């Protein structure tokens, strides 16, 4: 399991009989990767992350983080993982320095100079109280706390939610810098796809607690394509394609979104006599919408 820092098998969380937040999740996050964990609000991303950190008890399945079971060893995992929770609230009466002082003794690997460095880089005023900080600054403090103990794995649970685009960009920039410098594994959950695309090399898509796919981003982009068929007359009803995700009809135009695309498979469409056939590349957002969406996300 050493090649994966996170590995789950059939990981399930059931709150009530009818409310199954995570359904038999098989997740593998390779070491050194930047894994973006995509999903709409309420898809089960936070529940999964909380189970991975031992903050929530799993109902069934297996999970290992850095080779450890989160239910049995939550403390060693938390020591080795940097975690920024979704909309993380710290003690607002503390100053940034007090917050750092509060967290420091919990981590034997805490690096003071790194913390100082991050303070400067993020332009955080030490004496400012948490309650006086903007949401962006607040997020930066959380990131600082997650990074200063030099974790092997960084788990970020929708860290940019609620931030305005400028702050979001600034925050992401911070993450990108760290990733490049430290070569860490990052597990990054978000529902804002554009930002994920900038930094991720792996992607997993979660919908209603199920993992729809989990692939390297390049491979994902290669395999999910849009095929645009234009017909002279009526569009035939029985057009199909292996791995068809979505079918849209716009006048004489039929747009197919497919996964596991191969050029050879295109030949099968010839029998419907389209006037023209065009294969289009998709960005991550298009792929995501094709996979989960009826309507646009975020």
């Amino acid at each position: 399991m050493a090649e994966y820092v996170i590995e789950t098998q059939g990981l399930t969380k059931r709150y009530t009989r009818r409310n199954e937040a995570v359904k038999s999740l098989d997740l593998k996050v390779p070491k050194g990767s930047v894994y973006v964990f995509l999903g709409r609000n309420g898809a089960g991303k936070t529940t999964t992350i909380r189970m991975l950190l031992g903050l929530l008890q799993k109902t069934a399945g297996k999970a290992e983080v850095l080779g450890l079971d989160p239910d049995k060893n939550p403390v060693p995992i938390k020591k080795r993982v940097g975690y920024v929770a979704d909309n993380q609230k710290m003690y607002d009466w503390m100053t940034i320095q007090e917050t750092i002082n509060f967290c420091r003794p919990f981590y034997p690997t805490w690096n003071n100079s790194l913390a100082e460095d991050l303070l400067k880089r993020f332009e955080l005023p030490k004496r400012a109280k948490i309650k006086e900080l903007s949401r962006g600054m607040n997020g930066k403090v959380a990131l600082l706390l997650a990074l200063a103990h030099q974790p092997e794995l960084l788990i970020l649970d929708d860290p940019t939610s609620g931030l305005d685009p400028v702050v979001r960009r600034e925050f992401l920039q911070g993450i990108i810098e760290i990733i490049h410098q430290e070569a860490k594994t990052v597990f990054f959950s978000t529902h804002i796809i554009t930002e994920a695309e900038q930094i991720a090399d792996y992607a997993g898509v979660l919908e209603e607690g199920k993992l729809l796919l989990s692939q390297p981003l390049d491979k994902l982009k290669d395999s999910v394509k849009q095929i645009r068929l234009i017909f002279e007359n009526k569009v035939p009803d029985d057009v199909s394609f292996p791995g068809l995700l979505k079918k849209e009809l716009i006048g004489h135009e039929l747009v197919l979104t497919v996964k596991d695309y191969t050029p050879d498979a295109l030949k099968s469409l010839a029998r419907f006599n389209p006037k023209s056939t065009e294969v289009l590349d998709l960005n991550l957002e298009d792929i995501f919408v094709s996979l989960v969406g009826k309507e646009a996300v975020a």
Partner: protein
Amino acid sequence: MKTLIWKEWREQRLFFFLAVGIIVLSRIVPYFLPKRMVGYETYAVVFGCFILPILFSLFLGAISFTGEFIKNTKSFLLSQPLTSKRLFWTKFFSILVLLFVLVLLTLFVFLALPFKGTVFYSRGDWVIFLLVPLSMVILYSAACFSSLLLKNSLTAIICTPFVLLFGILLVLPLSVVLFLISSSLVVFNFFAFSLLIATFLIFSFLTWQKAIVKDVSPAKTIFATTAVILLISFGSHAIANLVASQKLNKTIQQAKAEGIKLTLQEIIPPPVSDKDNAALVYQQAFDLIDKLKAKYKEEWKYMPYESQIKTEKLTLQQKNVISRIMKDPEFARFYALLERAVNLPSCRFNLRYEDGPAMLLPHLSKMRSLARLLAARTYILAQEGRYKEAMESATTGLRLGNSLADESILISQLVRIAADQIAMDSFRQLLNNFNGAVSVRDYRNLISAIDRKDKSLTTGLEGELALGGGYFFELGLGKRRITARESEFIASGGKKNIGFPAAIRVMSRSFGQDNIGSQIFWTIYCSYLGKPVLKEDYAFSIQGYSTLIRLSQKTYFSAKNETSEWERKISITEKFAAMKHIVSLLMLPALGRANQQQSICTAGLESLKLATALKIYKQKHGNYPDMLLSVSPEIIPELPLDPFTGKDYIYRKEGKGFILYSVGPNERDDNGVYDPKHPTTYDIAWKVLN
């Protein structure tokens, strides 16, 4: 850890300083109040030093954990690499330490300034300084549980009393067991409070682990824990009840083996035929006396019947009035009836033993009055120089008490003793005035009357055990239903019967409490909770009575050490030990002196017998012997011994007469001084001048 404690301190310090400020003010302000407002000092101090700290602990318990949910910092705290256990305990104990500092400060402030008004606590009330902190911890832990469960401070504060009640109900059976095994009130309080604290701590911790740390419903865990605690609590109570039952059964068996009567059925004397029943004759005498009373309306006031009049203190004219009434043929008939009654073998007044302590005993005051009337008759006859008749009258008086001897009721036996004392006082006058008018046969009659006297209190004590002890325990343990007469007795207290089991009303009343709260408590206590305690108490009671009954069969002297030991055992001065045997100790200590009363009577009777024997000796030999030993075996087969010393009665010739006495319960030779008003103070003496 340090950093966590620091965080808690920083979060609560404002509240802490505020609390300290209020407490200090509540103590200082009354100190500077003008004199006329000194009365408010107590209220302010009690509020500031006792009520406020308790309220603070409730408040701190309710906010300490919920603060993390309300400000949404829970995730941040839990995401730190610390075990949830450490987080919980650090949080819990940090605030607990804060509370203790608050208690110490309160105590310091409380004691630092002298009280201007009345000091409302005494040295014995130091337990309050233990109870207040313990109550604070209980309330704090209950509030913690409540807040963790409800995740809201305000609802937690509102619901804490219910949570508290829930906890108390859970551990109540177990606390009864702790009550039984505790050696003192402090130990019991400590046990009981710790038990409650531990219960809330377990619930708080499990709720924290489930609802907060793992974010799952704590319902199953709470139900399971409740079930386990219930099992332990009720299980240990059941075991204690079983052990108490076995102990009680063993005690009952032992008492039965010793021949001690325990139930009402056992003490009821067997019925007798009407012709042998003196009670029927007494009834005729009572009716006759009522007629005489009606006949001599005005003059009757000098008769010592149902009054405390002393015949010897009446004027000559008044004595003449009595004498005239006594010469009435109806009175002669009355006396004849008495003579007949005292010679009948049995006496059964119509007593309803099944009514228990509510049993009516109207005959006792009448019997006592008869004794007084006979003493008055003896006195008048002696005054008139009719010594032979006086002697017969006094002997009849002495036999009167025998009619009560079969009644297994302690008060009947005490009336018997009183009647004997009244009769003996008649002889005290007579012995000096016979002047040969009384024959040896009359003296012999007196001796045989004394020989037939009951000289122990066994019957009365057995009745007291069955009627008093057994009765209450049978009611308490639900083995007996209350009778209509008892209900009447209970209702006579002036309060309306509100429908609770009447037995409980008897219990409540016997404990001096008759309000609804105490009745509810005693209902639960007697029907389930207190059963092991009641059984333990009943066993203690049986042992106490059994010892006393055994001692009543011995002489005062031979039972002296055992009596002291028994008195030491039942005169438990420590409040807590008394609480365990509350029913026993309501009854037993009052009986401590009963055997002594009997011994005083016995000493009086036996020394009277000896004095009578000495009179016979003089009639035979012309003078009194030099030594008491001379009357035995010539006149009486053996010499009785002084019950207070186990030695011979003290006898010496004085002038033409003699003095004969028992040293009495003070066991000291007071040279034959006798004080009829205080028979226990000096000697029990017979002084005969000729």
